[in-house]
């Protein structure tokens, strides 16, 4: 009898904080699912410009894995009793996808890797990790597990990028800088304290950023961890730290 009572209480207690915060998790999950779907599109496009069959297979495998992440996040929403919307045409995500497609049009395999693996993944991994630390139960576990998976598959891309940089350091760094201006500016605006251009077209009500403290997150911390992860990733590629510091310092806030 005792055990049953305890179990009932535990279920009710656990359900409560989640339901009261469900609308916040809905917006957080909507961003995550949309980001994963953008990754699916990006890797699928990448497969189309790869010449090496191994690279084609690799890109398609990544696309599949990102689709799995989107499904896992959607399922987490289901467990909370919410439908997780997604919108790859939402303002910032569309601009990010367009930047990626410009590299596809130019058949810029390296540019694609820089955007997807260095820039978008930095923001995904860092923010998923942080969400994973505060989100309750299986929601938190899913964020943490996907962060770990994303981190795992970055190694291969990093090896390719390091080899590319070794061929011509200046040219490589210039390319990263050009993409930084294009892509990181969008990500910085997306993670800024306020949306300068109005609604993000994904949150279901007003911007979720202001409500994040209710679930133990802050938009400032998410921006901080993401920029830190990005700088560390650039360090791993061998770009000079004093240079990338200036790049990040010059991003919009």
């Amino acid at each position, binding site marked *: 009898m005792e055990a049953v009572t305890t179990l009932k209480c535990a279920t009710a207690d656990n359900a409560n904080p989640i339901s009261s915060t469900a609308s916040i998790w809905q917006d957080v999950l909507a961003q995550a699912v949309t980001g994963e779907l953008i990754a699916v599109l990006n890797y699928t496009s990448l497969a189309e410009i790869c010449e090496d069959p191994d690279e084609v297979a690799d890109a398609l495998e990544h696309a599949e894995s990102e689709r799995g992440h989107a499904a896992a996040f959607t399922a987490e929403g289901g467990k909370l009793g919410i439908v997780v919307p997604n919108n790859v045409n939402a303002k910032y995500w569309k601009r990010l996808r367009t930047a990626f497609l410009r590299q596809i049009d130019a058949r810029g395999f390296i540019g694609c890797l820089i955007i997807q693996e260095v820039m978008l993944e930095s923001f995904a991994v860092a923010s998923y990790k942080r969400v994973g630390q505060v989100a309750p139960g299986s929601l938190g576990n899913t964020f943490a597990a996907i962060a770990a998976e994303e981190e795992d598959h970055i190694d291969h891309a990093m090896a390719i990028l390091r080899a590319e940089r070794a061929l011509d350091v200046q040219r490589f760094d210039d390319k990263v800088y050009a993409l930084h201006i294009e892509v990181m500016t969008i990500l910085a605006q997306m993670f800024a304290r306020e949306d300068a251009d109005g609604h993000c077209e994904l949150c279901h009500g007003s911007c979720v950023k202001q409500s994040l403290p209710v679930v133990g997150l802050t938009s400032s911390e998410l921006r901080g961890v993401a920029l*830190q992860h990005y*700088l560390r990733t650039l360090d791993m590629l061998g770009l000079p730290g004093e240079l990338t510091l200036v790049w990040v*310092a010059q991003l919009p806030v």
Partner: protein
Amino acid sequence: MPIPIDFALIAHQESWRAAADVLAVLRGPYLAPIPDDDLKEIFPWFPPRAVCHIDHRSVLGHSVHGIYIDSFIPPDRLAHKYRHENIERVRDAAACAIKAGARIVSLGGFSSILIEGDSDLLPEKGETVFTTGNTLTVAFVVKGIKKICALQGRDMGEATLLIVGATGDVGSGCARCLAPLVKRVVLNARSIDRLRSLAEELSAGGKAVDIATDLQQLSVQADIVICVASLESPSLLLGRLGPNAIICDAGYPKNLSPVDVLEDCTVFFGGLGQSLGGMSFEPDVHRVLHRHPFPNVGQGCVMEGMVLALEGRFEPFSQGRGFITPERVQEIEAIAARHGIHLAPLYNAQGPLEEVACETEGSADERQIAAPGRAV
């Protein structure tokens, strides 16, 4: 080919104003400064890294090249409770210096904790050597005291010297250098045991030494005070000061609060050196990092690494806590002087204390005549 790095300086910003100024330089002249709220949100997340390159010229003609690495410790998180995260940051900064191939590294401010304490917290260091730089700081504190006493015609032999933070690395070094020159020494810190053992050492030389854990309980009046306590916030109430006392504040953050009313006292910021050969910074954060009313001025601890690099002595000159002797102080002072690095002109929060024409090679545009602050 990357430029060889002779020296690296590791330090952190003392105030949010200073942090904002560093970022403003990095953002360049065309971007608006980052609003304060955003600055406080972003700055603490920067991983330690080089902020600028420095060329330091010796008056002998040669120069050395180095980098300034900021550990990005948030200025409001220097307190003891953040110790662990700050040690991590400084370790990261040290790893950065090692990766850059720096031959000698000066650890400014909180950073010296890496090699001051009981345990060596440094990462695997290869060829790179580390110095706290505190011996040169002591040299400049001591010189500053002697200079101001001379300027004011004060007889040091009749003076009572109070050292706040006496058992620290800088404090104990100052005590050893100055005890033989004054009439009486008063040592202040919180831990009584360490005070006792330093007092024992100094009184073995025949000097009258008092110890105090509470300045308010002190029965003697101090004529000369050296403040070198590692306080979390600048507020130190000096209870017992003699008439016209001389106070050298060499702590960071400053041990004396700007609101402390010190009637009839002469206060100066100690431990600072000036390079006659000059330094150049790229990007130009010199005025931001060295916020002094004179050009080419820096803290002794930071200057020590540059001095040793100019001398070609890549050795851990200052290590551990409490080992600074008058002989070592003389030695580093002589090396510094050989390369044109001397005690900086004295100043305090109100401005310069001396009228000085600052002419340094390679910095003609920075020549300035310092307006006198308070007469000495």
